[in-house]
């Protein structure tokens, strides 16, 4: 690797060759989210590229069906946590403790945990998890501290297709900005599920959506719980038999409940390798990194395309306009509302204001009546100086973050 760090780059004129960069790579604290098909490959490649401060988080345990493409697991590991087995395998292989495992849900860790890393590489199979990660890291950015921005390299595959994204939270398009591009979760009309199933998927949906809450009142169906999935499988199978439908399997049931498209080892390898190269380039600066979306399409011959996904100005997570207003703490909420209506950068018509509580809601009548007394209150009675209010208005696509600073 060193030859890349000690020579000038033809494509990155600002790059200053530096023999110490390999130490810099070894010291960089990187978080890998997901230790499945992508995660195993990502971990291996990170270590082979010189990273030595790696943490991996994954809530899954190893299933027999994982062994064909998740290269760090063996038969004897079935049932054990993926993160731990992957970390142990690599640490043993290189005789050094380079990976720390976290057998957790990503949501179980707080901002404090995520703040310790410099860069994140994601190998996830669920949109919801990706959305959560992206929102967490956007929210973590402190405008006065550039190092609070942690680049996320997000890899994903679906069969022969895959993509790599470089997300620089608040700087370029976040996960939410791109939400219109994501293939929608397939849902079936509930009436079809209830009355006229034709596909094995209909029977699985019937078992998981209709029958599960009926039989297991109050218990949430967990697609990672093998007993839960056995129940869904056998219930769906019975239903399928009654309607002369074939093709129900346990892994199909898991796929439908989790909404997963089967993964292929080689696509995982291509996408993971590309993710790690981007991580290396971002950390060292030795060559320009991906800006910001690489699409790999392997199902119609082979085709790859790189483009810049634009940040959405009205994105609910990262794109909201922020406005600061300075007023006396003794003005009333009503006066503040008049003030923001005539404010040139806002030009609102019927603003509704909230902190984590309702300040004033224009509708429905129930909330309007309850929040109306606040209009006559002075601001200091309602919130502290430098509070951030979420303002919505029919004339805004989404919302404005309004920071109110008291002048007295």
């Amino acid at each position, binding site marked *: 690797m060193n030859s890349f760090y000690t020579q000038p780059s033809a494509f990155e004129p600002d790059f200053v060759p530096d023999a110490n960069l390999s130490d810099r790579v070894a010291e960089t604290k990187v978080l890998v989210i997901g230790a499945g098909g992508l995660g195993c490959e990502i971990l291996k490649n990170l270590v082979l590229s010189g990273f030595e401060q790696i943490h991996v988080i994954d809530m899954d345990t190893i299933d027999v069906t994982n062994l064909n493409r998740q290269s760090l697991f063996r038969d004897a590991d079935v049932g054990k946590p993926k993160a731990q087995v992957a970390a142990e395998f690599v640490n043993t292989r290189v005789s050094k403790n380079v990976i720390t495992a976290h057998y957790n849900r990503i949501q179980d860790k707080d901002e404090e945990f995520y703040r310790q890393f*410099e860069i994140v590489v994601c190998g996830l199979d669920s*949109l*919801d998890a990706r*959305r959560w990660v992206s*929102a967490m890291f*956007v*929210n973590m*950015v402190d*405008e*006065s501290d*550039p*190092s609070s*921005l942690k*680049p996320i390299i997000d890899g994903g595959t679906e069969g022969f297709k895959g993509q790599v994204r470089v997300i*620089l939270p*608040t*700087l370029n398009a976040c996960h*939410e900005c791109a*939400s219109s591009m994501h293939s929608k979760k397939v*849902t*079936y*009309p*509930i*009436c079809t599920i*209830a*009355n006229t199933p034709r596909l094995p998927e209909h029977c699985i949906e019937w078992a998981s959506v*209709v029958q599960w809450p*009926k039989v297991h009142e109050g218990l949430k169906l967990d697609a990672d719980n093998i007993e839960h999935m056995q129940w869904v499988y056998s219930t769906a199978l019975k239903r399928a038999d009654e309607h002369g439908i074939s093709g129900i399997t346990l892994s199909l049931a898991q796929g439908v409940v989790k909404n997963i498209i089967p993964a292929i080892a080689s696509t995982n390898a291509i996408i993971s390798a590309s993710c790690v190269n981007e991580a290396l380039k*971002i*950390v060292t*600066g030795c060559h320009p990194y991906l800006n910001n979306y690489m699409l790999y399409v392997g199902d119609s011959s082979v085709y790859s395309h790189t483009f810049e996904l634009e940040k959405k100005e009205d994105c*609910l*997570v*990262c*794109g*909201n*306009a*922020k406005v600061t207003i300075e007023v006396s703490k003794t003005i009333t909420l009503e006066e503040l509302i008049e003030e923001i209506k005539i404010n040139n950068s806002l030009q609102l018509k*019927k603003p*509704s204001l*909230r902190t*984590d*509580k309702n300040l004033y*809601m*224009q*509708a*429905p*009548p*129930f*909330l309007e009546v*309850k*929040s109306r007394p606040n209009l006559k209150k002075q601001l200091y009675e309602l919130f502290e100086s430098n509070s*951030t209010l*979420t303002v*919505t208005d*029919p004339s*805004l696509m*989404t*919302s404005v*973050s309004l920071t109110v600073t008291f002048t007295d």
Partner: protein
Amino acid sequence: MLKVWKMKKQQASDEKTKPRNSAAKIRIQKDISELDLPSSISITFPNEEDLLKFEVVIKPDEGYYKNGSFHFRFSISENYPHDPPKVQCTQTIYHPNIDLEGKVCLNILREDWKPVLNLNSVLIGLQFLFLEPNPDDPLNKEAASELRSNLQSFKRKVTRSMGGEYMDNVYYTKVTV
């Protein structure tokens, strides 16, 4: 890394940042504060500071279900508006598109939901189910076939069930006021 941080520094001076509230909460604040509903639909909050949970009452002013007062519990997930609102009828009612457990068959609550739709469109759609029950999308098959084959008998059964009584071994909630 240095390059990324340099870009961030540059941008920080441009004064564009993000809000502190979650995307779901911002979006539901917008949806709720811009509700424009007919007097036949009302919405209340068990805890007014929590906009993610609320109750809706529909009082149809015409149609088979006139004079009834139908109660629904809504819950909005942290994935809103990617996921539709969850809607449950809290009464046992006789309706082709609502089963006896309160599940509702409305296309925009499931397969036809799109994030550009909002709470207002869901509430209007829900009210429409009472004005025009749809026998082609049944959840309560018996009620649907009654509506299709014997309108007079369907109307009678609706009226009886709304008064709160046993019909075919099911006790229907009294929904008339």
